[in-house]
């Protein structure tokens, strides 16, 4: 349960179950990032409380909570500092008190999973933008948090990188992790079909399945969130099918049938 007062967040009540995938949308400044910063304790609520797996965030430090909640921030340059990629991934593991054999195991797994093994001994600073993003994800997943929060993961990414990201997100979800994605990339979210929470001026103005929420044009326009292209198409078709199009092939199939 989350709930907070003060200008940034206003009376937010939200429950996220274990293993859920949730997308949080809203314009810049709506409070999305502020909200997720409460989940790992970076921010403590002025009024109300935030509980993660039964622990009140006021009772433990951020460093402590982060063992359970990993946040991948938007800018990798705000994190990378080690001499080598390997040490970068090791950093958090050391902080969380993993023992040496476990650290080696987790580091190898993370570098392998994200395709960064060939950079193991290289400096993180020479990596490209997309590789740096993967490195930050690797550093976080190395310690295997139960909750993973992605803060604007698709910003500045090209199509191929976005596809990989969607794959990774789905894999995490299938592995039983609770995944929270803060994003204004509605096409990306549409391809994942998570539960969607819409925020506006510090409040939650929408909460439901992806398909339901994205269809509420009035609410989304007021929140300055755009609708995915397939939804916009669906809304304007006359006549239109009851169910909205989830993928491009769905749309093609229906249109070709209707026109015939």
């Amino acid at each position, binding site marked *: 349960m989350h709930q907070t007062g003060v200008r940034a967040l206003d009376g937010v009540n939200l429950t996220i179950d274990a293993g859920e995938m949730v997308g949080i949308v809203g314009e810049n400044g709506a409070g999305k990032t502020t909200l997720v*910063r409460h989940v*790992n304790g*970076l921010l403590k609520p002025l009024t109300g409380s935030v509980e993660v797996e039964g622990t009140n965030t006021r009772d433990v*430090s*951020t*460093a402590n909570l*982060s*063992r359970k909640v*990993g*946040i991948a*921030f938007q*800018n990798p*340059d*705000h*994190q*990378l*500092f080690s001499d080598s990629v390997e040490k970068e991934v090791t*950093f*958090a593991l050391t*902080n*969380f008190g993993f023992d040496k054999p476990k650290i080696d195991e987790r580091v190898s797994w993370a570098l392998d999973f994200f395709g960064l093994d060939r950079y193991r001994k290289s400096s993180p*600073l020479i990596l490209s933008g997309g590789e740096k993003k993967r490195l930050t994800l690797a*550093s*976080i997943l190395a*310690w295997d948090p139960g909750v993973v929060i992605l803060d604007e993961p698709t910003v500045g990414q090209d199509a191929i990188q976005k596809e990989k990201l969607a794959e990774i997100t789905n894999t995490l979800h299938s592995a039983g992790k609770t995944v929270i994605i803060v994003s204004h990339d509605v096409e990306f979210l549409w391809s994942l079909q998570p539960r969607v929470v819409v925020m506006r001026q510090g409040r939650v103005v929408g909460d439901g399945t992806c398909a339901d929420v994205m269809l509420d044009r009035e609410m989304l326009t007021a929140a300055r969130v755009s609708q995915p292209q397939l939804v916009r198409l669906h809304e304007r078709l006359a006549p239109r099918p009851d169910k909205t199009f989830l993928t491009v092939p769905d749309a093609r199939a229906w249109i070709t049938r209707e026109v015939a």
Partner: protein
Amino acid sequence: MYWIANGFLFRRVTSPFHKLDPRVKLSISIMFFVLSLLASYVITVAAVLIAILAVAAFARTLKRVARTMLFSLLFASIIFLINFFFGLGLLHALVYALRFLAIISSTSLFFVTTSPDELEQIMKWMRVPRDVVFAFVTAVRFIPVVMLDAFQIMDAQKSRGLELEKGSVLVRVRNLIPILIPLVVNSVIRSGELAEAMESRAYGAIPKPTSLYGMKLKWYDWTVLLTSFLAFLIALYIYHSFHFPF
């Protein structure tokens, strides 16, 4: 620390004082500075201090300047104690301590009432090289940005288990490395982007660029300047001619 720094940061306030030409504001602060140094009695130093606070009040920045003074009390006390124990006598030590407070306040008065733009114009007027002026302006302009970066970096590293509030002094200093390195790296990257943007807008095209704003002394600038100079001279005369009990 924050309060002391704040005592030198410009705040956008409208007051008749702020509207003065920056050179007049500078002159007034310098005059206060000199008066502080030359005052040799507690009464005279105290008078200067009160005058500074009065001007600060007139400029609607009294709280700021007063706060700076308050937080300089620590150093002032140290100065007092050192001088006292070197055998200079109670009154003398007090004068030194008060002098310190007055110097700090007069400097604070100037910086709090002068915007960075005005500081830039003063530097140009003093014929400071263009590149130095630009470096100064850019540095000040990016202070809030770098501070924000620092907070975001701290957030990111805390989220990786970095404890910033625990441990011995040695441990805490070592824990600053994951904060400082990204901060420096980001600043270097930023400098590169700034350089590109500067080049793309023809920086350095001609030796003497023109300026959107200019400084011009108006009638009230002259009035204030002459009046304060007169007061300055009178104060000097008083210093010279009178002997005070303390």
